[in-house]
């Protein structure tokens, strides 16, 4: 028979390096044709940072994302932006890019202001067009503007940016610290179906709400949530790297089981996008926060469905069946008022 249930879990996560100062630096150049060259320590690992940074730069520089060229992450060629992890990329490097672009764009405005004889603040740019507020004639393409500044004024527009996040180390005895400036909160609900013929658990739906700060690219944030949820489904139900006396019995994907397209829930993502007030862009992150509530939500949903609490991951079919069998045996035994096990304490009831 199949049984359905639901579980809920909350989560929180700190953004960028833990209890240590974090930093990222960027160089920006407004380049021929109205393109923009950006050098920073980033390589795409799949989270979408490449596109996200190009969107940020495009917005700040008044060009389009496809006009941005992002240099390879190469210690001999770009300024350091530290590591690709800790859900820090959009927060650290996104902010650094914004700062670097603002410096460069500020110089652009100053130069164009001098060229056009207008206040720098009246100059705007978007998607490759540059114009002066309120003027029908003072407009040109970004490409032309770059050309004019270089040829006629000898100006190459460059900027740099540094973003630092202030974190303090842990006190060795109490753990007292400010380990991060920014936190991402979250909550997920999971709905499962448990098959008591086999112990199989299918996760049918997950609803995930995360406070991700300002959203640069909604599709990418959803993609991170969906990927994190499915990775957690694997952790919750099927993944186990097994060693006996140091020898691995799961050295490949035949024995180490990952979720396939047939194992994944429908995922509904809710992006709570209140900007983070402490940083120029207001962005936070999502890569790791997405993965923490799912597994307990699933485990709690299994309890809701069939009344067994799995306390050891993964909740394989064997573990679920074994727990169901124990439950049946326990419930079939005559009631003994003196025998109260951990699972059977009489519920306290609501206040």
């Amino acid at each position, binding site marked *: 028979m199949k049984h359905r249930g639901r579980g809920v879990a909350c989560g929180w996560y700190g953004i960028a390096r833990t209890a240590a100062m974090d930093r990222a630096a960027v160089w920006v150049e407004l380049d021929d044709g109205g393109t923009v060259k950006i050098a920073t320590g980033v390589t795409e690992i799949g989270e979408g940072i490449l596109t996200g940074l190009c969107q940020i730069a495009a917005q700040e520089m008044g060009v389009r994302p496809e006009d941005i060229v992002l240099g390879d992450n190469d210690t001999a060629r770009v300024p350091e932006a530290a590591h690709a992890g800790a859900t820090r990329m959009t927060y650290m490097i996104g902010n650094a890019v914004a700062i670097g672009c603002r410096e460069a764009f500020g110089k652009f405005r100053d130069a164009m202001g001098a060229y056009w004889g207008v206040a720098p603040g009246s100059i705007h740019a978007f998607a490759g067009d540059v114009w002066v507020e309120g003027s029908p004639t003072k407009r040109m393409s970004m490409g032309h503007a770059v050309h004019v500044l270089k040829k006629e004024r000898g100006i190459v527009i460059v900027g740099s940016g540094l973003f630092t996040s202030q974190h303090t180390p842990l006190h060795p005895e109490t753990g007292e610290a400010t380990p991060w400036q920014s936190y991402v909160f979250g909550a997920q609900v999971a709905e499962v179906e448990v098959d008591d*013929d086999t112990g199989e658990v299918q996760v049918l739906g997950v609803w995930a709400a995360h406070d991700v700060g300002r959203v640069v690219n909604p599709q990418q944030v959803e993609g991170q949530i969906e990927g994190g949820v499915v990775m957690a489904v694997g952790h919750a139900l099927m993944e186990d790297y097994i060693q006996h006396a140091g020898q691995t019995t799961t*050295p490949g994907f035949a024995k180490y*089981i*990952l979720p396939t397209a*047939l194992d994944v829930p429908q995922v509904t993502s809710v992006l709570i996008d209140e900007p983070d007030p402490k940083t120029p862009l207001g962005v936070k992150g999502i890569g790791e926060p997405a993965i923490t509530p799912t597994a307990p939500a699933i485990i709690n949903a299994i309890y809701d469905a069939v009344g067994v609490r799995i306390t050891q991951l993964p909740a394989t*079919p*064997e573990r679920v*069946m074994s727990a169901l069998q124990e439950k049946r045996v326990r419930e*079939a035994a005559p009631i003994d008022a003196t025998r109260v096990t951990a699972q059977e304490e009489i519920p306290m009831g609501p206040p």
Partner: protein
Amino acid sequence: MLTFDQYLTPATLAQAFDALEGLPGARIVAGATDLLPWARDGRAGDVHLSALVDVSKLPELQGVGLADVAPGRIRMGAATPIAAFQHHPLLQQQAPVLGRCAVWFADDQIREQATVGGNLVNASPAGDSQPALLAMNTHVTLARREKGRILERTLPLSEFIVGPGQTLRQPLEIMTRLELDALPGHGAAFEKVGHRRSLVISTVCLAALARLDPTRRRIEDVRIAIGAVGPVPERLDDVEDFLTGQAATGARLREAAELAVERVRSRSRQAYRREVLVNFIERALVAALAQAGLEIQRVPKESGHV
């Protein structure tokens, strides 16, 4: 990693025997989908063979059709890919349990490459095709060459597999074809459980076929075969006998299913397999009988049996 001195693709059965006889240690290969994953770190490691003899294109091993001299039987070449279980019109109509088995067998790609003969000759205890083929009263034909003449022998699949990875095939024999029942009117079901829903090794697998008598109250014919719970796949002949000719009720199905508990002789997870096996037998029979025209309710589960 798999390495070898030679890889031969004979065009005729005679050339295949030339190769096997001429190269001691030569191994027959069809789809290679079991061989290549086996020769890797964590399993057999680096394996070197004198030769691989690829039989997958031999004309004698091809084709799916009705067996001309045996009415009600289907003939299938040993090199038939598992994908044919799902796609071949004759098998869809006459042996639908095979399609139900195929959807649980690895994935789309591997089904195009893996052959039914290879699956049987490798005789993995967790092989998914074996229960379905056993339930269809499959016979396998093996060809050999004696004094220049190609001879054949045919034996039931139930006798062919004798242990984990062990069959009655002699080293210089080549499986050429199978013959199995055409059962268009039977209800059919295939059950399998692993740790996920695709490309997964079976912990328990089972095929069931059933036909009702004209009154639609009694079971006229029932076949149940199991895999992955012991060293070899098996027909549950005692369970079949218990049910044949009997009224089909939930209680009877449960009693029949519990007869099979002793069949679990795996090296691990026996308690789990026993419980699932009983549930699978019940569930598969209910599904097969429903297709055959009779809806049955399963009895509730409280009666523990393990």
